[in-house]
């Protein structure tokens, strides 16, 4: 006989608690990863812009624009960076990486601005652009565009991995809890069946020989109690195995 109703709410409670843990952990994880990685990418982009700005000061002063372009091209190999451009102090484009040409939005922007700005460039995608002044801006400005789609993909991948891990833990936890509940419910079911048998046929001597009566736990105690009550009602003493067990 199976015990279903007794642990119904227990199971529901386990599901609810685990679900709540997974949900809250996932939300926290998404928020943390998104915030941290976004900030990290932005900082990295700023660092790259600053590195280019620091490296290009001497090159710019020598008007060695081929070397400047070579420098810019190398940084374009960094994952996520989709464009770089360097403008002079007068706003002239001295080096860039745009193909087939410099987008209108970039041409019309304020080239001296170094604060992070989000751009949506037709045919290219969405970007966060950061700038860094060269020689405090008197020699020009470096601008680096980080592809937001690449950043979003990275973040999604990181979050996906975290949520996947938590979900696996949820499933394992629920399965384990069900197994433990079933482990506890099984002897209770046997006890219930035993009690029913005693009620139906308490005179049967075979009922005094069951393994259940030898258990050294609450179920065993209850089984022996049920047998005792049953035998007392019938005017008979306890069988030897039960006395020994007690």
């Amino acid at each position, binding site marked *: 006989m199976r015990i279903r109703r007794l642990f119904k709410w227990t199971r529901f409670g386990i599901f609810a608690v685990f679900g709540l843990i997974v949900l809250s952990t996932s939300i926290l994880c998404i928020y943390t990863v998104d915030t941290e990685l976004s900030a990290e990418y932005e900082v990295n982009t700023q660092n790259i812009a600053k590195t280019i700005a620091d490296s290009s000061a001497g090159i710019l002063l020598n008007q060695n624009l081929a*070397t400047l372009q070579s420098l810019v091209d190398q940084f374009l190999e960094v994952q996520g960076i989709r464009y770089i451009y360097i403008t002079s102090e007068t706003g002239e484009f001295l080096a860039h*990486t745009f193909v087939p040409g410099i987008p209108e939005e970039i041409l019309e922007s304020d080239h001296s601005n170094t604060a992070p700005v989000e751009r949506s460039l037709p045919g290219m995608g969405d970007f966060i652009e950061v700038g860094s002044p060269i020689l405090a801006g008197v020699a020009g400005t470096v601008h680096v565009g980080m592809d937001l789609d690449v950043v979003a993909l990275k973040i999604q991948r990181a979050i996906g991995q975290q949520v996947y891990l938590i979900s696996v833990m949820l499933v394992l936890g629920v399965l384990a809890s069900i197994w433990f509940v079933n482990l506890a419910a099984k002897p209770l079911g046997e006890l219930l069946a035993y009690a029913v048998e005693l009620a139906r046929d308490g005179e049967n001597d075979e009922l005094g020989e069951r393994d259940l009566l030898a258990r050294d736990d609450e179920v065993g105690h209850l089984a022996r109690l049920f047998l005792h009550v049953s035998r007392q009602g019938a005017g008979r003493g306890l069988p030897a195995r039960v006395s020994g067990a007690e």
Partner: protein
Amino acid sequence: MQHSLGPEASSSGNWGPLVTRKSVMRSGLAALLVAPFTVSSLAAGRGQESGGSEAESSDLAEGRGATDEEIVLGVSAAFSGPSRGLGTELYRGAMAYFNNVNENGGIEGRRVSLKLYDDGYQPDPCVQNTMRLMLEDKVFLLFGYVGTPTVTRVLPILKKFQDEKIFLFFPFTGAQPQREPPYGEFAFNLRASYNQETAGLVDNLVRIGRRRIAVFYQIDAYGRSGWAGVRAALAKHGERLAGEATYSRGEKFTGSMRKQVEILQGVSPDAVICIGAYAACAAFARDAVDLGLDVPIANLSFVGSENLLKLLTEGQDDAERYTRQLINSQVVPSYEDTSIPAVQEYRDLMARHDPQVPADLVQEEYAPFPHSFGSLEGFLNAKLLGEILRRLGPDPDRTGLEEAVFSIEDFDLGISERVSFGPDRRQGLQSVYHTVVEDGRFVPLDDWGARFG
């Protein structure tokens, strides 16, 4: 990937300067069968690659790059990819000269060998090849590199190893980085610079009233170098760039340049100067004509004129459809002008040797031209380097290279212009020539006004 150069067995039984493992093995077996007397020179040619004599291994290990038998020059160039024609033509011209030198006893008894690597006109492979040439192959000097984005990345390596005194001779680029501090002292140039080429184009275009000049360029160090040259030349005339459009290095002729043409059409230029390689520039010229951008389209010498012309005329009913507006700047005289002694010598040696790129370097089919501006430049490069090596004397040493180069003063290379070098003069030639297409070939442009005015 390492590519060697199979020794070229001539009918006289002499061996050419190129050596590789595979080809040496292959050719070596043939040599043993047909010309036993060549075996000793073959063994010497193999150098450290094929386990040559202890003496020569020792010499190379010491970093001399020269043994009693040979002088090894290191080459990294484009032998594959869309720009493979540039490396191939330059190499063929150089080998025509060096084969002849080797046939005639070499330089001070030493054959000149080339250690070849393919970089596909890409900077990273070029850097790796250069490190290998310097540190493993221990070549005597670097020679015949192709391209600005490649050479620009190699220059810091030369500076890093400046104590080794390994110099880069006559790269196929007119960019400024190897002509100016901080890297100018590690390279020697023969050809005129892109600044001189672009200035020549701009000055002539402005002179005939074409002042609105736009630029179509490869978005890398080469394109930027030419862009800067056009910009500076225009500034001298009080003008600015009318507009610009770009393409990525490695574009093929089959690609579309319509967006670039449309961008430049938007600024209504009087002329367009292209700074690119032949495949992309041919695609641009084709699309410009197709879209009605009917203005002169000028190219720099690096473009590879013959390959450009071939792409634009092959399979066309009207062969001049895409070439009427072309102007190509050159840094060597016309290879058709046999009144020039060096041109005649070049043609004779090309016909005699017809050098081919070693088979293990050939990844894609390429049909070389009997004559080209690229191979003539390679020939002149080799001829001048041969003279420099001779001036090193019987015991060549890298430390004497600069002095040998600076001893070149008013040297007659066989073209109209004489060559001089000095501590403040690291470029041998200054002349720029302009050509247009007529009857399916490039001919000198004498009258800009009549043609494009």
